[in-house]
């Protein structure tokens, strides 16, 4: 009983801090907070499939970019739709693309899916580069709306919603049990009646759609997008590192990793005016996590063993094949 209330203290404190943030920081820091929330949300979106289902997506930026471009195209001339109407449109476009990319490839070993998602993001980048309606390399402008509080609170809403959906769906429902079961042993999950292909696809669509919502908010926020800024592979790279560092397949890990790494990135930028150093930190972080912290930072606070078969092992196993198989 007591611990239940204790468990509520931190979430309530976080909500209060998030709600009051604009009253005690200036616009500069409010922008950093907005960015941190976006990256926390994106890391959570990648973790839905990568962490809970064990399927590594190397093209998540494709869906971030689809959300961004859909919003930019629909808000710009000649369509001029209001911002919040463009979000469901981006979700629809993204869901269709995720089904087309994931439907055939999620049935296979994880490597096929990883390559397909990566290739899809690359193809979209090239497509946006050469097409007229996407503005080519020059990109698209959106109607400027210079209200930092609006974007901050919109990002809070999206990030908190993403977190709550993850909590409810992956940690507290039958669906989450099915997803984790197929991550840990696909053949055994199938033998229990779980349609693993379908559950993987549902998870992938949810993950992709979540990223697209952040893409939509991002586009309106920065008022200008181009293929590199929303489809770029470095966007996916960041999500992957944030999740690995925070804790693959954990609820809090990706949020911690997302906020932490983004704030570090901005601090480095402020002190050195350059983020080359940040890339070195990312590389070192990956090596350290893989070697010493398979459960990430979140794993430090939970009683988890590293005896065998960690979530990282499972995801790598799906990527390179081997592991379970149909024997025995």
């Amino acid at each position, binding site marked *: 009983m007591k611990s239940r209330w204790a468990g509520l203290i931190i979430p309530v404190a976080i909500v209060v801090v998030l709600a009051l943030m604009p009253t005690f920081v200036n616009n500069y820091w409010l922008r950093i907070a907005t960015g941190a929330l976006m990256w926390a949300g994106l890391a959570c979106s990648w973790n839905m499939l990568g962490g809970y289902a064990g399927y590594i997506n190397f093209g998540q930026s494709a869906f971030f970019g689809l959300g961004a471009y859909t919003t930019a195209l629909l808000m710009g001339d000649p369509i001029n739709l209001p911002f919040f109407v463009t979000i469901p449109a981006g979700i629809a476009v993204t869901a269709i693309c995720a089904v087309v990319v994931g439907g055939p490839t999620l049935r296979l070993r994880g490597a096929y899916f990883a390559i397909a998602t990566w290739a899809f993001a690359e193809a979209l980048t090239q497509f946006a580069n050469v097409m007229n309606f996407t503005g080519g390399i020059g990109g698209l402008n959106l109607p400027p709306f210079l209200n930092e509080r609006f974007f901050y609170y919109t990002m809070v809403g999206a990030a908190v919603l993403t977190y709550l959906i993850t909590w409810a769906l992956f940690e507290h429902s*039958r669906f989450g049990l099915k997803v*984790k079961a197929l991550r840990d042993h696909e053949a*055994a999950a199938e*033998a229990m009646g779980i349609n693993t292909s379908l559950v993987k696809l549902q998870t992938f669509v949810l993950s992709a759609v979540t990223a697209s919502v952040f893409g939509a908010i991002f586009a309106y926020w920065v008022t200008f997008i181009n293929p590199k800024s929303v489809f770029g592979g470095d966007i996916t790279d960041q999500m992957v590192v944030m999740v690995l560092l925070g804790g693959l397949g954990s609820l809090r890990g990706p949020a911690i990793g997302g906020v932490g790494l983004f704030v570090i990135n901005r601090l480095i930028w402020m002190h050195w005016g350059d983020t080359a150093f940040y890339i070195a930190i990312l590389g070192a972080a990956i090596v350290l996590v893989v070697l010493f912290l398979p459960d990430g930072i979140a794993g430090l606070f939970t009683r988890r063993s590293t005896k065998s078969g*960690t979530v990282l092992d*499972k995801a790598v196993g799906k990527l390179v094949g081997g592991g379970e198989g149909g024997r025995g």
Partner: protein
Amino acid sequence: MASTSSPQSGSAPENRASDAILAVRDLYRHFGGIKAANGVTLEVGRREIAGLIGPNGSGKSTLFSLVAGTVKPDSGQISFDGHEIAGMNAHRIARLGLARTFQIPAMFDNMTVTENLLAAAAQGHWHGAKERAAETLALLKLEPVAENRASDLSGGQQKLLEFGRVVMRQASLILLDEVTAGVHPNIRKIILEAIARLRERGISFLIIEHDMEMVRNVCDRIIVMDAGRVVTSGAFEDIVRNSEVMQTYLGRPQ
């Protein structure tokens, strides 16, 4: 070597198909040059507990994987509870009421023992799953490790959890692959009692077992496999008296 599976009762072959919950006909599957299933034909009756014995590598576990849809057959028919299931996806076969254990425990490593049990009920058997999981934990004496990760269990505990997961499913036919191997005699007794109770509820079993004592105690009928096919089947005493079968067994490292 005779390849006939002789039905032990005198009923007409046409009728047997309808009272069998599982009927396998001429099932083939090879892995490279190995003919793991080389024309398997067998039946399991309703409410029957059939034992499947045979030397190492004779294709017993492969037969389970073929029936459960984990491995696809090259050819042959499998009829389960009136459905033709050969080549069907494993999850669809499972939803028709088939449950199986894996010889090498197929744990959901990063989930707790309780979550492993709940996951087994997540598809279609959810009502009352939490209570059934608690009962199953108590039955198999797994309560002390209920919140441990499955990968941290001992080998014997993983075997128990493997059994516990099929108990969580509401199946009409359960395939058990050496489920008591390496399990403490006291717990083994508990598993045998659980099997007897499930059979009273109308559940049929096909059980792979190397322990002849257990085979004698629980199985109504024994099916003997060798080199990917069924050699013979019948009552335990008849099988033991059959010298050819015992020959087959002598080749097995004890």
